[in-house]
């Protein structure tokens, strides 16, 4: 383990506090953050960084997260002083460069999704979901349709879907999936009715397969007066090829930190832009950018958009992330955007085929992979007691980040694998070879997996102890 930053502290005498501030407002106990030398700080955090797995250093096939290459040029562009030093309350005439970028991004995302309008403000997917279902709510209410308090969500959906629906005041109804991965239409129909506000779907679904009856679903939901929400987490699978708008969705979010290659940053920041069909446009969260003419762009406010669901953060959202997404889209252009889904699908289907070849079981063997796919190691589990967790931990020993495990929960002992389009065949082939070796180890030396990882700074951590002790801050 690295030393704590606190070991680098050099005690100092706190300064005399201002005398023109009432004593009752002033700090009591001296602030106790470490006073460390600049080199010690630099060294500490540089060395900590080296303990991370990251896209820049490892293959990172974390399903549902689209861990693709984050172009360094996007970081450079977002860091230009002309953007980085801009105060949010700068009047519009003095930030036309930024507004032009944001306006273009709105336009491009609308084009990419087949939607009428976009708001860039949500800070991540989950906030986009909240905005989306809030718009659904506002839409129904604007029509005087007040009884729609239920949101349908597939059992396999990501946890943020029900959490967001709940946060927007909806009751969540779960809809099961069939064995082939598609939604259970009968269950859906059984729930549709005047109390249903809409349904939240991911397509391709979190099961890694395309929901084939999406047109039919849309028709049924719409017929029942509901709206369709599209969780854009899996947009990478169909980018430039299938527009959610064309599938019948009314409102959606995009995870720019997935599909549009902005960095995941060890857990954010992301950006969860929302896109809507025309009838939902009046409800978009604020602010959005409006172009009156070249060089005359401005933010829209409550005065312009009185029906808006309002604001989700104090300013315009995660603008630095939006700048990166803009740079990425501009670099790729029309053809490049379409190639994303093409090669994401190629990599996923190739990997699925190869992993099946070396003995792994697909959760949906009759289906094409989308940009990702699910393996289940239930067979290994039965034969040797080895669990998906053990396979994941052993992968770390080979310098490969583990896939997502135990999500979606309905597939037992599952690994959700998403290679992304930016990985080369050579990287995939190495992954297959390692997975083949791990499978053999599972059968021959299962303890090698059960005790993995062996070659990392720490072994498996005692999570129960962590929760019990709850040592979440160094005591001063």
């Amino acid at each position, binding site marked *: 383990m690295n030393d704590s930053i606190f070991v680098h502290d050099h005690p100092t005498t706190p300064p005399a506090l201002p005398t023109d501030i009432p004593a009752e*407002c002033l700090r009591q106990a001296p602030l106790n953050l470490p006073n460390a030398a600049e080199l010690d700080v630099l060294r500490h955090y540089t060395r900590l960084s080296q303990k991370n797995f990251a896209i820049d250093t490892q293959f990172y096939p974390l399903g549902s997260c689209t861990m693709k290459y984050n172009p360094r040029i996007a970081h450079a562009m977002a860091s230009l002083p002309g953007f980085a030093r801009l105060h949010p309350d700068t009047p519009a005439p003095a930030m036309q*460069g930024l507004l032009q970028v944001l306006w273009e991004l709105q336009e491009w995302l609308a084009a990419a999704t087949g939607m009428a309008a976009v708001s860039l403000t949500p800070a991540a997917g989950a906030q986009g979901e909240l905005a989306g279902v809030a718009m659904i709510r506002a839409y129904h209410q604007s029509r005087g349709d007040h009884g729609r308090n239920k949101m349908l969500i597939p059992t396999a959906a*990501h946890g943020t879907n029900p959490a967001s629906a709940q946060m927007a005041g909806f009751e969540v109804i779960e809809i099961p999936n069939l064995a082939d991965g598609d939604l259970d239409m009968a269950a859906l129909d059984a729930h549709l009715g005047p109390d249903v506000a809409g349904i939240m779907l991911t397509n391709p679904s979190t099961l890694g397969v395309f929901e084939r009856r999406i047109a039919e679903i849309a028709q049924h939901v719409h017929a029942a007066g509901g709206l369709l929400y599209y969780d854009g987490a899996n947009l990478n699978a169909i980018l430039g090829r299938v527009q959610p708008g*064309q599938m019948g969705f009314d409102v959606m979010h995009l995870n720019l930190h997935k599909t549009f290659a902005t960095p995941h940053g060890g857990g954010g920041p992301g950006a969860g832009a929302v896109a809507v069909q025309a009838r939902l446009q009046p409800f978009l969260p604020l602010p959005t950018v409006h172009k009156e003419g070249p060089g005359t762009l401005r933010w829209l406010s409550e005065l312009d958009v009185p029906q808006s669901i309002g604001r989700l953060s104090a300013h315009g959202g995660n603008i630095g992330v939006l700048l990166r997404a803009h740079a990425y889209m501009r670099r*790729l252009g029309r053809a490049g955007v379409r190639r994303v889904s093409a090669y994401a699908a190629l990599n996923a289907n190739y990997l699925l085929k190869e992993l099946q070849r070396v003995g792994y079981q697909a959760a949906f063997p009759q289906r094409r992979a989308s940009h990702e796919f699910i393996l289940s190691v239930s067979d290994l589990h039965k034969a040797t007691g080895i669990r998906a967790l053990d396979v994941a931990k052993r992968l770390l020993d080979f310098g490969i980040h583990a896939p997502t495990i135990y999500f979606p929960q309905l597939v037992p002992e599952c690994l959700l694998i998403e290679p992304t389009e930016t990985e080369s*065949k050579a990287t995939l082939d190495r992954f297959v070879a390692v997975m083949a070796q791990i499978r053999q180890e599972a059968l021959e030396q299962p303890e090698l997996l059960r005790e993995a990882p062996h070659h990392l700074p720490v072994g498996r951590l005692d999570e129960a102890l962590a929760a019990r002790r709850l040592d979440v801050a160094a005591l001063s």
Partner: protein
Amino acid sequence: MPYIPHDPEETAAMLAAIGVESIDDLFDEIPSRLQAQDLDLPEGLSEMALRRELEDRAMANSSLRCFAGGGAYAHHIPALVWDIAARGEFYSAYTPYQPEASQGTLQVLYEYQSFITRLTALEISNASLYDGASGLAEACLMALRIRGSDQSILVPENLLPSWRRVLDSVLGLQNIRLISVPYDTTTGLLQLPEDANAAALIVPQINAFGLLEPVDALTDWAHARGLLSIAVVNPLSLAILKAPGDWGQQGADIAVGEGQPLGIPLTGGGPYFGFLACRKAHARQLPGRLVAKTVDGQGREGYCLTLQAREQHIRRGKATSNICTNQGLMVTAATIHMATLGSQGLQEAAMTCHARASRLRALLEALPGITFPYAGAFFHEWVVRLPKDAVFVRDTLLKQGLLAGIPLSEWGEGASGDLLVCTTELLEESDLLTYREAMRSMLEAQ
């Protein structure tokens, strides 16, 4: 093909292995009528052309000396902060789901939590929320969960209006009542009612006019009436201002704020991050990620996410929040920033901000026609009342390279001449003099 490594031979080999003819075949489960052809997007650019276009755009934003605050502050960020935060190992990792492969991020978050608890004098800090305003909404929801019955919150009218709007948007969805608490228009300070039925009182220290509130009294008022006290604080100010945990008899229950002043560039409004700290007793109601120290099988210390049962990926609809991706990289930068400055550097920055504010106020006081509507103590921001329309003044000073402040009329507050002015350590004496002179000629002009 930008960012795609495949050459034609590899693609062919992969297609053959899959057993299809073309990439299009991989989409054969998707009804063809759903498959769009060409999207209405521009052509791609080389990295070189992209750089040129975006450098031109960046130049199209004015470069201004910043006297605006209002929740976002121009501070000096040591060069090392983003050099380290932007290292690929931090920049391109994700949530530390595999702790063994994420000890870097996890230890950073643990140190971040430690720093925030020390700044706030509270026991637990989460690992970030989206921003201060959305963080306050989460804090309110948390207070409502803790209090259980009461479905209302007392919201001061001298809370930043943009924050109030976020509360309206988010809490409104769950039909939570936001009870406005007015401020005294002569002092700019909160005016409490005799009594109130609510889960919590929001106490903004510093308030929207830059003024310091009597936080001890406010906190005690809330506690005496069975309300929780939610402190809204500027983290840099806590280097010299009383920590929420020390407010009143028992201290605030929850502290929340905008983390931007801790090493985050302004970038037109984001990404920033919200911090949220509370007492240990309320840990299970905390929204967002939380990192704990533990040990591995060999007794080696290490870090992992904890109390995950609060979160959406486990608890789904019953989670304490829907937040998943949060603001990790911002918090990484803030941690490095705080470690680089240390208590000493933070205190110096805070003291300088305050000294500059006092100085500029003194400089302006001498100008004819200028008044200061509120007399109370401030940290680094105050309202000046100009004898001309503040929007007009602000727009005129723009041409001299100054962002003079935020006209309160843009918030629908105050008199038309009211301008909220902020100074930070980035401003030197010469900048203050320039400001004074610009203001003087502005006011002298007909």
